[in-house]
C-alpha cells in the first residue's frame, strides 16, 4: 500500500497578515480554509476530512469544525510541532488512498506577536517526564538549537560564515515577496556581525516571529480531474521522532535521516532529481543539518554545500525557500511546516514570483522539523510532483 499518485494538492492559501491585531485564532483558521477551498474551486460542503494541530483553539478539531460548519468523516489532530502539517499531508493522503475520505482540509494559524500562544510554547497540558531533568537549566529554543550548531562546528569544521550563507540566500528570495517581514538583502558580513544571541548563533541566524497561517486542500484523483487549477501529485512521505535515546545522544543529525529516506523510497526518486526544496528554517543550522540528513550532500559537507549562493534560485544548484522562508518571510505560530508546502506547490504550479521561479520545476521536496532539535523533535518529509 502506498500513497504514491493517490492524492493531489488542489488548493493552497497563505494568510497575508504578519500581525493579526484584533483577529482571533479561530477567524484566522477559517480565513485560510476559505482561501484554500476557493483556490481549489471547492466549497466547505465538499470537505470530508479535517486535519489540525495544537495551534487550533479548542479540544482537537471540535471547535474549528463547529466554527467553520464542517461535517467530516475523519479528523486527525496529530501534534508534532512545526512538522505537524506535513504529517497531516501524509495522513490525509493515506485516508484518501484507502477511500475513507475524498477532500481533506489542513489548517494552521498562530498569533505569537499579538497574544496567541507565546513564542516557542506548544500547548502542553501535562508536565512531560523530562521536565524535572531539563527545565532547571533554562533551555530555550535559541540555546538548544545553538548547541546543535556548536557540536556540528566541532565535528565537521562548519563555520558561522557558512551558516550565514543560508540567511543570505533567504534574503535574496524575500526581496521579491511583498508580504515578507524582512525584504532587505543581507550579506555574510552582516549576519556574522549581528549580535550573538546564543553562542554560536547570531541574531540573523534566527527566523522571524510572525502571526499568520496557511491551509491545504488535498483531494482524491477523481476530484482533482474535475478541477481547473494546476495539479500537484503526492509521490511519497515519511515521518520520524528523534529523542535523547536514554542519554546516548548525537545532536549533529536529525530525524530527517529517517523521514527523508522513507519519502524518497516511496516516491522512487533520489535527492539529485529534486529541482526545488522547502526546508524548515527556524535557524540557519536547522537548514544545514536537514539538507545533509535528506541526502542533498554528505554528512558534514553542509557548510560547503550552502556556501557561495548555492541555495539562491537562478544562482545555485538547489534553490530553497523561495518565499523568503521563516528566516525572512513569516513563521506563523512558530510552526514552519505549512509554509514549506505552500511555496513548494507554488513552484510546481509555476506560480512562484518570476524572479525566483525555478525553470521546469517538476519535482519538489518539503520538509519540516517540530519541537527541539537536540532533545526531542518530529520530522516529516513529503515529495511532490507537477501533474
Amino acid at each position, binding site marked *: 500500500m502506498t500513497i504514491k499518485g493517490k492524492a493531489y494538492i488542489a488548493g493552497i492559501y497563505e494568510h497575508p497578515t504578519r500581525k493579526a491585531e484584533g483577529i482571533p485564532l479561530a477567524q484566522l483558521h477559517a480565513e485560510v480554509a476559505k482561501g484554500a477551498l476557493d483556490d481549489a474551486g471547492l466549497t466547505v460542503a465538499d470537505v470530508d476530512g479535517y486535519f489540525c494541530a495544537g495551534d487550533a483553539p479548542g479540544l482537537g478539531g471540535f471547535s474549528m469544525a463547529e466554527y467553520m460548519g464542517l461535517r467530516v468523516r475523519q479528523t486527525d489532530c496529530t501534534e508534532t510541532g512545526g512538522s505537524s502539517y506535513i504529517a497531516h499531508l501524509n495522513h490525509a493522503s493515506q485516508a484518501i488512498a484507502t477511500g475513507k475520505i475524498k477532500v481533506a482540509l489542513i489548517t494552521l494559524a498562530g498569533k505569537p506577536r499579538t497574544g496567541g500562544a507565546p513564542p*516557542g510554547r506548544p500547548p502542553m497540558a501535562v508536565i512531560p517526564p523530562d521536565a524535572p531533568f531539563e527545565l532547571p537549566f533554562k*533551555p530555550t529554543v535559541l540555546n538548544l538549537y545553538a548547541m546543535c550548531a*556548536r557540536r556540528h562546528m566541532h565535528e565537521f569544521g562548519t563555520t558561522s560564515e557558512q551558516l550565514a550563507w543560508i540567511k543570505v540566500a533567504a534574503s535574496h528570495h524575500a526581496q521579491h515577496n511583498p508580504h515578507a517581514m524582512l525584504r532587505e538583502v543581507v550579506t555574510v558580513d552582516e549576519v556574522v556581525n549581528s549580535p550573538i544571541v546564543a553562542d554560536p548563533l547570531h541574531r540573523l541566524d534566527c527566523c522571524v516571529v510572525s502571526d499568520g497561517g496557511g491551509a491545504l486542500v488535498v483531494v482524491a484523483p477523481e476530484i482533482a480531474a474535475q478541477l481547473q487549477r494546476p495539479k500537484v501529485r503526492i509521490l511519497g512521505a515519511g515521518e520520524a521522532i528523534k529523542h535523547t535515546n536514554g542519554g546516548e545522544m548525537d545532536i549533529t543529525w536529525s530525524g530527517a535521516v529517517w523521514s527523508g529516506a522513507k519519502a524518497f523510497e516511496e516516491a522512487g526518486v533520489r535527492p539529485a532529481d529534486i529541482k526545488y526544496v522547502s526546508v524548515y528554517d527556524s535557524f540557519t543550522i536547522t537548514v544545514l543539518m536537514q539538507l545533509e540528513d535528506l541526502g542533498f550532500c554528505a554528512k558534514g559537507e553542509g557548510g560547503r554545500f550552502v556556501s557561495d549562493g548555492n541555495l539562491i534560485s537562478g544562482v545555485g544548484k538547489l534553490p530553497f525557500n523561495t518565499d523568503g522562508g521563516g528566516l525572512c518571510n513569516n513563521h506563523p505560530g512558530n510552526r514552519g511546516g505549512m509554509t514549506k508546502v505552500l511555496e513548494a506547490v507554488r513552484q510546481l504550479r509555476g506560480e512562484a514570483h518570476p524572479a525566483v521561479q525555478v525553470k521546469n520545476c517538476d519535482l519538489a521536496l518539503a520538509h519540516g522539523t517540530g519541537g527541539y532539535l537536540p532533545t526531542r523533535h518530529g520530522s516529516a518529509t513529503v515529495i511532490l510532483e507537477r501533474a
Partner: protein
Amino acid sequence: MSAPKENVVVADRAMAPYWEAARAGRLLLRRCSACSELHYYPRPLCPFCLSSEGEWVEASGEGVIYSWSVERRANPPYAIAFVTLREGPTLMSNIVECDLDGLSVGQAVRLQFEEREGQPVPVFKPA
C-alpha cells in the same frame, strides 16, 4: 520552554531515591538489570527494553562538555551544556563558576549541586 514551571519535581515514588541522593550531593543513574544498559534521565522502566528491573548507580561526577551555549540575552547570561558523563550517558546541565568566554567542547568538568527553587540539581564546573 514548554512546561509551566522551571523546576518541577512531580510526586513520583519511583524517583524518590534520585532526589534524596541529590540532597546528599550524589548523582544517580539507572542501570537496567535485564539489558544492562545505563540510562539518563532515570525511569522506572528501561527506555531500551521496558524492563522494570533496575538498580541505581552513582555517577563518578566526572564528565566532558559535549556541546554548550551561552544565553547572551539573559540577565545575567548563563551557560547551558550537554555533558557526557564518564559512565556514558549525556545529560543537560549548566556550567557554573566558569569564564563564559572560555568554554569548549571536550572540556573536562566536575559535578556539583546547586539549589534551584529549593531543589538541588546537578550542575558542572570546569575541572
